[in-house]
């Protein structure tokens, strides 16, 4: 870009082509916005839904029990049918300013665009081993559960043969079943609380169906192994009694955090506890004309609720564009 050339201006730019970004794009289009740029860093739309191959999606929004890819496909098909929504794939936003100028990388090029209104739908990321303070060595074989899910369901790799899963949230439970179906042994699911944070249905269909033991009020106190995980030390947090389990893989499923580094770069106020934007009402942040929706606004339990609130974000952006400035 030469010094005096100005970046192209688009009415609405949306960052993230997962369920939140897609619902927001379609809703904004329905509300009259006819110039929409949807930036997605992956080579496909759909976001994390593409790796969530299990059922349980869409019971509210579609009144059907869909898998993640099926739920995503319904939105992808609608986006593809709307020429006013330009879905730019393999487009990774690296910079955002408070006056809504975005810099993004595409294969072979760097683009700059100014948005009249901006919707951030960047999703969330997994909390890691470091955030739950597990002592021990740092061998290969310790994975966030969602990363292991991507390895199996997208890449077709099985990350290990004998796993211990830390945390009994839904992702951990779903991955226990996925490992068991693929012929790996799940030695245990370890939960520090008194009960599972996952759905009852998942405890039954993912653990009980495969006779996988679930230990409440226990924690993984230590991971052992030189190059690869060899065993873990499990401790009862009340009695402090402990025992060892041999395994080659530890999956960490201990929650999600909104991914908001870009709006932070633009000086949007972020709550340091939750990593959500400081907000007066759903989808709002401290800069007018920037909307945040889906799991980057707050971590949702159901994709159906993400869709509901992201539709609202698309409508809010359309209203903002109509306001006299």
């Amino acid at each position, binding site marked *: 870009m030469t010094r005096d050339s100005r970046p192209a201006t688009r009415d609405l730019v949306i960052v993230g082509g997962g369920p939140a970004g897609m619902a927001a794009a379609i809703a904004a289009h329905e509300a009259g916005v006819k110039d929409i740029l949807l930036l997605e860093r992956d080579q496909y739309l759909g976001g994390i839904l*593409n790796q969530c*191959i*299990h*059922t349980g999606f869409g019971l509210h929004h579609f009144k059907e*029990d869909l*898998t*993640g*890819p*099926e739920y*995503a*496909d319904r939105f992808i098909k609608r986006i593809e049918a709307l020429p006013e929504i330009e879905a730019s794939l393999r487009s990774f936003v690296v910079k955002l300013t408070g006056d809504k100028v975005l810099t993004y990388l595409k294969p072979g090029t760097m683009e700059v665009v100014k948005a009249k209104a901006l919707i951030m739908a960047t999703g969330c990321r997994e909390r890691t081993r470091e955030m739950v303070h597990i002592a021990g060595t740092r061998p290969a074989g310790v994975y966030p559960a969602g990363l292991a899910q991507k390895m*199996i*369901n*997208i*890449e*077709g790799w099985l990350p290990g043969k004998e796993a211990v899963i830390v945390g009994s949230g839904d992702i951990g439970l779903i991955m226990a079943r996925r490992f068991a*179906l*693929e*012929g790996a042994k799940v030695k245990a699911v370890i939960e520090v609380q008194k009960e599972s944070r996952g*759905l*009852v*249905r998942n*405890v*039954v*269909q993912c653990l009980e*169906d495969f006779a996988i033991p679930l230990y409440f009020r226990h924690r993984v106190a230590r991971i052992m192994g030189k190059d690869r995980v060899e065993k873990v030390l499990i401790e009862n947090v009340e009695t402090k009694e402990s025992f060892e389990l041999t395994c080659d893989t530890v999956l960490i499923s201990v929650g999600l955090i909104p991914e908001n580094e870009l709006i932070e770069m633009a000086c949007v106020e972020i709550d340091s506890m939750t990593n959500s934007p400081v907000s007066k009402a759903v989808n709002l942040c401290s800069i007018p004309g920037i909307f945040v929706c889906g799991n980057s606004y707050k971590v949702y339990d159901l994709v159906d609720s993400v869709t509901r609130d992201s539709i609202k974000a698309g409508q809010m952006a359309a209203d903002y564009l109509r306001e006299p400035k």
Partner: protein
Amino acid sequence: MIRKMTCIDCPVGCQLEVEVEGGQVIKVTGNKCEKGLTYARQEVERPLRILTTTVLTSGLNVKMVPVRTNKPIPKDRLLAAMAAVRQVRLDHPVKVGETIVKDILNLDTDLIATREAF
């Protein structure tokens, strides 16, 4: 024999105590509604599950295509169905909902694609 189970028909998750004799349900307690009764019968006499997994492709845009059974199959056939799915190589484009394996394991159930591949 008393079997304890959690009804998963809705998110309430009633804790059921099911009296079972010779593989038949005699009595169900702990259920807050009629669905618990149906669930206990199904679970004791013929538990069913939808299988979701992936199929390896060759020459297509994605390496793995996610698939599901279009109906629930008996729980005790899940691993046999997985073994059958492992033998499949998908080498032609599919649309969402398209059949990949017809009548898998003669269970009167088709394996269908849940993502398109081309």
